[in-house]
């Protein structure tokens, strides 16, 4: 009896320490980013593009990268959503009687998920050379779409997997076609999970460097068409942090702060929206 109590206590302390450790890491990251970046985060920083070159120019801000990141993430998330949703629904509704086939699709998606983003970047770059396309927003959006697509599909799939078989059977018994069940029942039941999938993908798209390194390029300007290169926040950090000029490095830290703020905002938005659309969900 006493041994059990000691064991219980030991694991309690262990869990507490691990939790504290995780919280501390988060706190330290936030603290160091905010300490180095927050002082430089001014209205001018987020409302103007760099002047005199992003590597040497002392003037201007990071608006080019903020807009570029938003274009890129919104575009690729939207593309990944419209291509991924039918796949996830098909896996769980149309192919419900073929679990082995669906599991092999899941395996493929998990493999794609595991491939590092630099490989997607290299792949996109190869295709671009083959087609004769230069680094541009469009090439970046397509590459990032390929990169977040497995994440999007698997996240939606995990949500759809929780729908009990009884609900599928009930809907089938009412004479619904599989497509009606997909969009009227399964999608509705899983709206919170769908929102999570979308925002997870958005976060990944916004934060990735390697896939856009070759494909989107970098520029001081705000792109006005899909054929132009675009800047992104992660690449801004990557390029400008190594600059010998103090003012340029400050822009990198400001970019890091903005990126963290975007990701935090996305996380909170996920929570709020999921809760809002939880109302009609059936709890099994």
């Amino acid at each position, binding site marked *: 009896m006493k041994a059990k109590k000691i064991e219980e206590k030991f694991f309690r302390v262990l869990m507490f320490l691990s939790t504290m450790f995780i919280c501390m890491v988060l706190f330290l990251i936030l603290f160091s980013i905010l300490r180095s970046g927050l002082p430089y985060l001014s209205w001018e920083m987020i409302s103007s593009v760099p002047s005199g070159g992003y590597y040497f120019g002392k003037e201007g801000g990071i608006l080019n990268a903020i807009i570029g990141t938003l274009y890129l993430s919104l575009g690729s998330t939207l593309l990944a959503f419209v291509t991924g949703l039918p796949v996830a629904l098909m896996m769980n509704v149309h192919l419900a*009687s073929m679990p082995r086939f669906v599991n092999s699709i899941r395996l493929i998606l998990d493999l794609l998920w595991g491939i590092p983003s630099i490989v997607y970047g290299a792949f996109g770059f190869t295709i671009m050379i083959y087609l004769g396309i230069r680094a541009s927003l469009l090439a970046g959006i397509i590459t990032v779409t390929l990169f977040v697509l497995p994440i999007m599909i698997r996240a939606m799939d995990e949500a759809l997997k929780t729908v009990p078989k009884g609900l599928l059977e009930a809907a*089938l*018994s*009412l004479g*619904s076609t599989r497509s009606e069940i997909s969009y*009227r029942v399964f999608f509705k039941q899983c709206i919170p999970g769908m929102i999570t999938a979308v925002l997870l993908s958005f976060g990944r798209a916004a934060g990735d460097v390697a896939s856009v390194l070759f494909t989107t390029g970098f520029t001081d300007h705000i792109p006005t068409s899909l054929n132009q290169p675009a800047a992104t926040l992660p690449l801004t950090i990557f390029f400008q942090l190594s600059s010998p000029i103090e003012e340029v490095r400050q822009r990198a830290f400001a970019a890091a702060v903005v990126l963290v703020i975007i990701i935090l905002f996305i996380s909170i938005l996920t929570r709020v929206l999921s809760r809002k659309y939880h109302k*009609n*969900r*059936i709890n099994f």
Partner: protein
Amino acid sequence: MNSTKIHLSKLDLHYGKQHILKNIESEIPEKKITVILGPSGCGKTSLLRCMNRLTDLHPDAHLSGKILIDGTDILSSNEDITNIRKMMGLLAQRPYPLPMNIFNNVAYGLRISGRKKKKYLHHRVEHYLKLVNLWDEVKDRLHDPAVALSIGQQQRLCLARGLAVDPQIILADEPTSALDPQSSQAIEEKFMELKEAYTIVIVTHILRQAKRIADYVIFMYMGEVIEQGPVNEFFENPKQEKTKEYLKGMFY
């Protein structure tokens, strides 16, 4: 005087190598309550699921033989499976309301059949909710989520939802097993009324329930139909040894 609604002939069901239903022969009478009785795992639920081909969902299901509904074989005919399923309402062991509000749950079947006029939908939803005695309890909160209802209310909602598709047959798989006694009684009483207009097939393992509501009984054991017949004959004068043992409560 009894016409046959569902005629099962030489019906065999395999799940992979497992032989679930063995050479089932049965004639289920129209506008009566037929109860499928039997111990757990005897195949009674599988038999019910064959009738609207939910067995298709099983990856290794193989169904052979004939299921004739009004003379049409639903296993071989070219008729669309969704239309076949529309002819049969299903009530599961526990209610599975759709993830939408109370009104839309009942209106769902009407909407997917192309009925979209608001006035019509309102009229029909009210009709079917009244039919299952749920209207008075929910009329002020039709736009609340269906999950806000109690389990017993949800089961009646599912019945209303199934009836709204205008089926001819009601299939019920232990429809009262998750319900409290009052709710169970409400469902049983509803079935007694509904048999005027519908052919009802109920799976149960509760002998007393079968006795109370059945007109016709099919007794199954280990995937085979052991005995079947009108309820009085079945309970008062069983012919098979297995049936006698079961009725004495020697196995469940």
